[in-house]
């Protein structure tokens, strides 16, 4: 029983990392008014390029950097399309999503089914020896903690700094922000690029730490769940963070139930994240006030500065 619990806690913490990182990135982009639906593709590119980098160099640090950087480039395509070419954000997001899945397949094509060493765990010394708490909380790689720190940093910047104030103001009314002299295009581009980098690091974590192997399509819908998570959390950082851990736990539950040998069709378990997503989405969205109060008002709207 304790062993199962440790397995679930430790597993949840790790499984949440890609979701949490990518969700924080998407949250920042959406706060500036940019709805980027290409998270799935960005995570896939990050996963593939991160994996190949680790496979070639053996450096996990480099893998994470390359994973983040390559997804950042892809998000740059989204920024160019939707900010400078005034393309519909939904369409542009789908475009880079499709492009990203294709590119990730191209990058990983010679590595299908191969493995690398997992991102090493941090050495906590005596802390990891504490019964229960040690193996559950102090037996992880650094990104498990860094992801949570990142969530805090995003909260702090958005709510407590002038930069965050500027991002929120652009997301609410780009025309007013422009009239005050802020470059809407620059701020939105930076937020989108941050979103790309976070999705890429999340993807790289998936392929070099969580399940250190390459399989085409391994992101498996997580990018879409990330987009849904931001809605669940009604664009509020602590809620999005909790949502991410909830879905991390859900994926562990799936494994545990399979382990228990209950007679549930495996397909139902595989479909469960999507079913739960729809249910939570309905529960949150049915309250329009909740959405209206917190969603960035210009979300999804193309803005063209007049001069």
């Amino acid at each position: 029983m304790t062993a199962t619990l440790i397995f679930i806690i430790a597993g949840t913490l790790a499984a949440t990392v890609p979701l949490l990182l990518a969700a924080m990135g998407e949250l920042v982009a959406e706060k500036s008014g940019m709805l980027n639906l290409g998270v799935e593709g960005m995570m896939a590119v990050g996963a593939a390029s991160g994996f190949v980098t680790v496979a070639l160099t053996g450096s996990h640090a480099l893998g994470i950097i390359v994973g983040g950087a390559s997804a950042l480039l892809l998000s740059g395509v989204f920024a160019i399309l939707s900010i400078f070419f005034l393309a519909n954000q939904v369409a542009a997001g789908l475009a880079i999503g499709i492009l990203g899945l294709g590119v990730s397949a191209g990058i990983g094509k010679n590595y299908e089914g191969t493995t690398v060493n997992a991102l090493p765990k941090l050495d906590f010394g005596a802390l990891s020896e504490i019964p229960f708490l040690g193996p559950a909380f102090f037996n992880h790689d650094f990104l498990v903690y860094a992801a949570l720190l990142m969530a805090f940093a995003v909260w702090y910047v958005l709510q407590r700094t002038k930069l965050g104030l500027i991002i929120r103001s652009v997301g609410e009314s780009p025309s007013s922000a422009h009239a005050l002299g802020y470059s809407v295009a620059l701020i939105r581009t930076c937020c989108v690029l941050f979103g790309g980098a976070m999705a890429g690091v999340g993807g790289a974590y998936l392929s070099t730490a969580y399940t250190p192997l390459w399989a085409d399509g391994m992101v498996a819908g997580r990018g879409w769940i990330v987009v849904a998570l931001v809605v669940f959390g009604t664009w509020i950082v602590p809620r999005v963070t909790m949502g991410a851990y909830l879905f991390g736990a859900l994926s562990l539950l799936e494994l545990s139930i399979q382990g228990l040998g209950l007679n549930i069709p495996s397909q139902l378990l595989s479909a469960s994240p999507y079913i739960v997503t729809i249910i939570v989405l309905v529960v949150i969205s049915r309250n329009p006030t909740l959405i209206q109060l917190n969603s960035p008002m210009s979300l999804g709207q193309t803005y063209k500065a007049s001069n």
Partner: protein
Amino acid sequence: MPSIYLEPRTERSAFAPFLVSGLAVFLTMVAGSGLFLLYGKSPIAGFHAIFIEPLLSNYGIGEVLLKLGPLLLIAQGLAIGFRARVWNIGAEGQLIIGAILASVVAIQFDGSTSSLLLPAMVLAGALGGMGWAGIAAWLRTRYNANEILVTFMLSSIALQVLYYLVTGPLRDPQGFNFPQSITFSAAATFPLLIENTRVNASLLIALVVSFIAWVFMQRSLMGYKLVVGGLAPHAARYAGFGEKRAIWLALLIGGAAAGVAGVGEVAGPLGMLQRTISPGYGFTAIIVAFLGGLHPIGIVFSSALMALIYVGGDFARLSVGLPSAVTDIFQGLLLTFYLASSLLLTHRLRRRSSENRIVAEIAE
């Protein structure tokens, strides 16, 4: 000061849509050349394999037509929804559910030689696709749940439903545990349209639907209402065009088209229900719809192009050794470049010169 600038168009241009799609294809080929070089292949050989080789044999042409059918059908349905700004991205799932329901009919009436069997399957497929899309419409209109996310999640769920059925209830009992259904009887499959190819009569459905889509979008009041809802939601509300009705209609049309496309696969080249029904037609059709300018006639051309890229991608893998990912990358590039080029639909390039200013002053 830049000497070339963008000026918003005030009038629609009849020429611009062709320019934009052509430009997108051209830019994709330029970027594609780079891709081929990256893989150490000659761009000329690559393009020859993708765009020319399939058209050199009856087999190749047949395969292109075979893939054109479902892409055309689904894209016509999706485009109607996209014009109304209803983002159904789960056509793949609607296709699967349509295929499943049609298969249930085929399996139930196995051995029947009735000429009503195939129409019944088409009807079941359409209803299946509509039902699956209808869930998204219901959740959107009743609970305000975002249809982009719901349709995507539903397509992932549909895939699991399919896996469950072909490994369980609908599996062929004499099939050595292969995850597939019985082979459909002749009455439950589309007749071939061209000898020695796999092209079947479902292609005709796609063509007829394209014509209906044209009439619907260009000449019907209902189509006009959908378009107004997409272009200016407040104007639609002002006019009294119900938003909920538009969402239902857009999703049901898209779902029906995708469902019938699913029937075209199981009652066509597959002849049975199996784990893989479609190579992602439902997702590719999104690109087809955009590339065709969301216009029923444009979509005929864009689906032909995309079908060619599908088949050409296979040819290129065999003859030039390009990886299959090239097809996916090409599709992504096409949509990307299309969206970038689309700026020319609403804006035009002008050169800033003293001449313009004089014209402007005279106009004033």
